[in-house]
């Protein structure tokens, strides 16, 4: 068995966000956003295009600085120290110009030293072990995204952000990514997933954060959100109506 579901102790959670604002020029993209995330599982961030979902996860991961507001992970301010225990998979994977194995090795060497057994385990989990020596950038889109996910998990994160990792992937690749995500979540990794795919959100979410115009409109358990969304904008979104 590759994945024994040993739940990791959560030292990063809860996440507490208060009064978060981010402006680009005169446009306010994140507007006085408050959010609290506790416990393990998969939190899905949903919302229409331009709502600020990708921006929010970048802010939470500390890749960009907000103009005001606070982000605290278990009482610690967001920054380089908290980012050490986190990882992120971007919508467009950025792979090093190296072999598949070397991409994973790079992160393993950073975090815990080279470990061939761990690398092979991660590649096996991503179904890429037979392509270990191939150039990473010669992989298909789905394979590249699986490698990006395997590489992110190589850092043994407590929290992993995934920004629309299955956008533009076929169903088979999407399923493969979702399987790895679910396995990570079962091991106790907190998964924060941005997606437009309502079906995917239904399959994976433990709770849903719905964002509109840079603020959290609704945050509730998955069952509640999908069966009884409290806000009109979320109901319209789930009904497939145009939400601007």
């Amino acid at each position: 068995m590759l994945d024994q579901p040993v739940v990791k102790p959560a030292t990063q959670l809860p996440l507490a966000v208060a009064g978060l604002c981010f402006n680009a020029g005169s446009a306010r993209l994140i507007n006085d956003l408050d959010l609290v995330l506790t416990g393990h599982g998969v939190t899905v961030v949903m919302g229409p295009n331009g709502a600020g979902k990708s921006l929010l996860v970048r802010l939470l991961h500390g890749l960009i600085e907000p103009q005001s507001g606070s982000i605290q992970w278990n009482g610690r301010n967001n920054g380089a120290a908290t980012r050490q225990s986190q990882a992120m998979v971007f919508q467009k994977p950025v792979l090093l110009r190296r072999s598949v194995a070397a991409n994973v090795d790079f992160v393993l060497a950073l975090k815990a030293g080279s470990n061939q057994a761990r690398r092979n385990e991660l590649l096996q989990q991503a179904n890429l072990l037979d392509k270990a020596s191939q150039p990473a950038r010669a992989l298909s889109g789905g394979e590249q995204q699986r490698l990006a996910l395997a590489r992110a998990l190589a850092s043994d994160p407590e929290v992993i952000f995934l920004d629309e990792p299955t956008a533009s992937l076929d169903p088979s690749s999407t399923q493969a990514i979702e399987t790895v995500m679910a396995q990570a979540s079962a091991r106790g990794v907190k998964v924060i997933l941005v997606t437009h795919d309502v079906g995917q959100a239904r399959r994976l979410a433990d709770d849903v954060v719905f964002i509109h115009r840079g603020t959290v409109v609704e945050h509730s358990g998955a069952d509640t959100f999908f069966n009884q969304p409290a806000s009109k904008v979320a109901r319209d979104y789930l009904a497939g109506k145009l939400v601007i």
Partner: protein
Amino acid sequence: MQDFAEAFRLAFGLVVAMDADLVEIIALSLRVSLAAVLVAAVLGLPFGALLATVRFPGRGAVVIIVNALMGLPPVVVGLLVYMALSNAGPLGFLQFLYTPTAMIIAQTILITPILAALTRQIIEDMNLEYAEQFASLSVPWHTRIFALIRDARYALLTVLLAGFGRAIAEVGAVIIVGGNIAHLTRVMTTAIALETSKGDLALALALGIVLLVIALSVNAAVMSLRTSAESSSHA
């Protein structure tokens, strides 16, 4: 036309005969220029990568200066190195003047800014692509620099070629600090200058042809290496 024909005939004859003087001049030229490229690479590549990835006050000014130094006049460099290495200069005690070491120093000074400036441009472009991923992984700055250099290695081969081209073709600095002494500091370019001044245009042209062939061969070999390595390893 007669001069050109004679030059080609003479060049061919010198090469076929493996003329000892010619071989010695070629060997010294390659030794000096390759050594200068090696030292300049050790200095210029990491410095260029540092400039590309680290933000600090005055960085813009440093970039402008490094770019401007790409156009350093060789004779000025030769003069400065001459003054530094002459007996009255601060480094006179080293007794490097009129030795191949002095020529390597001069060529290193000439090509280091070229390697640094071109490296900065290449690494900066790659860093734009990698920066967010590196930030996410909390990659330390020194690991980031060496990772970028490693991943840009094929593009950087072209940078090294540019440096080598500048070094092997350079005459102004090496003639000042080397003195063009037969069997000691005479390289292809200084020999060409000497033969031209003596009016032996045919021999000068012959040496020029050999120099061109060397430059072409090194370029072809490196580009071939780059192409095959890229296609067989990493896209």
